[in-house]
């Protein structure tokens, strides 16, 4: 009857519940924590050497494990082991005979005195039985659930969180190392920049030389051509001038007359045909 109360939660849970949630080990990203983690692990190793190490006699003194459920009972409250103890010596009826005999002895010797207050005993245990049958399972469920929540909160989640944090730390740090190694690109690029600037300056020099040489050559060509053009011009002018000077006034009038005669002849040759007779 009472067994339904003896749920998985033990005194351990009650003790733990009163304490704040704890974090197993925090490995903050980016901080120096070598000693903290190493010390923690050292504590764990020492403790497991004590409790699970080779010196521990696990055969004769097995490690106590909190039972998931309470043991079996007969008639609601008498442990099964007691019946087993009697069964080996007295058979099946032994424990019952012992129980009845014990009760008879207690009553007949007036060790257990039935007085007027005995009715309360009946009422009390009757009420306990009734409550156990009605709200017992629900209560047990509630306690179990609470226990599971506590276990999750106090044991499983902190360990999970610590693992996640550690994995994240590893990932973040590996990435940081990978990025740090990328610095070699920076040095190469800086050196390359210097090289590029030198190359640019060199090419500029080449180009300046090219331009200067070309300008000088072009100047020489230009000077030559200007000289030649001037000479030509001058020669032409001189010839024209001398020819003009050599012409006399008689020659001029003769040539003008000749020109006029030529014009007249041309006009006669090219005269337009007579206008056609007007239409009637």
């Amino acid at each position, binding site marked *: 009857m009472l067994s339904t109360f003896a749920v998985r939660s033990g005194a*351990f849970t009650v*003790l733990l519940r*009163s304490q*704040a949630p*704890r974090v*197993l*080990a925090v*490995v903050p*990203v980016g901080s*120096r924590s070598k000693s*903290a*983690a*190493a010390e923690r*692990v050292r*504590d*764990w190793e*020492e*403790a*497991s050497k004590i409790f699970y190490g080779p010196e521990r006699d696990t055969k004769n003194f097995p490690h*106590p*494990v*909190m039972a*998931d459920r309470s043991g079996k009972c007969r008639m609601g409250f008498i442990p099964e082991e007691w019946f087993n103890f009697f069964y080996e010596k007295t058979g099946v009826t032994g424990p019952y005979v012992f129980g009845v005999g014990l009760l008879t002895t207690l009553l007949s010797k007036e060790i257990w005195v039935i007085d007027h207050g005995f009715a309360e005993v009946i009422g009390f245990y009757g009420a306990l039985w009734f409550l156990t049958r009605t709200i017992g399972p629900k209560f047990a469920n509630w306690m179990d659930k609470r226990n599971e929540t506590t276990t999750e909160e106090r*044991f499983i989640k902190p*360990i999970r969180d*610590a*693992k996640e944090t*550690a994995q994240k*730390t*590893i990932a973040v*740090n*590996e990435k940081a190392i990978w990025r*740090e*190694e*990328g*610095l070699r*690109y*920076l040095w*190469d*690029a*800086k*050196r*390359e920049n*210097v*090289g*590029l*600037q*030198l*190359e*640019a300056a*060199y*090419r*500029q*020099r*080449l180009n300046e*030389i*090219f331009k200067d*040489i*070309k300008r000088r050559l072009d100047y*020489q060509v230009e000077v030559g051509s200007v000289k030649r053009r001037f000479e030509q011009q001058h020669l032409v002018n001189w010839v024209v001038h001398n020819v003009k000077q050599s012409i006399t006034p008689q020659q001029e009038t003769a040539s003008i007359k000749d020109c006029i005669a030529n014009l007249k002849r041309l006009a006669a040759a090219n005269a337009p045909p007579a206008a056609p007779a007007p239409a009637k």
Partner: protein
Amino acid sequence: MASAGRGSGRVAKSAIDWIAFRERVPPRQQEYYRAFRARNEAYVMKVHMYPESLPKIDFAYYKSKLPKPAMADEFQKAYESMNVPYPIDSADTLREIEDQQEAGEKASKAFIARRQDEINDAKLLLSKIDSLPKPEEMTLEMFAYYFPDKALDPINRPTFWPHVPSMQPGHKDNKLL
């Protein structure tokens, strides 16, 4: 690639794997990366503004045009035997970069060592955390051994009843003391 642009050979284009470089730059330094990249590209563009070697001049044309063809030959001889000195790194920038690199590598070595320590710590913790006893096996005594700094220690760290952190004097949640 390590000797890229060390002044020995002529550099005409970028030999840096810029995409791989960008991947390695942390997100909050991408701005600096972009500025640096733009600078490099400007240098490359400046290089490509002019031809690589001395441009050819058509001396035959000038020979036919010049009043004195011998002058063209003279020019040609001078132009083709021209020795243009390659500019030297007078500010010794390469040396400066070497120094920078030396200091930077020292710093990054220390940084990597620090990060590696953290990784080792986390790995150590990961390897050992599964060896902790299960909750149903753990007793308060075991807890005191496994977590000596967290367990109740009435001799070295006495506490007031009910021995929970929130009820101790000085705790931020304590309204009584």
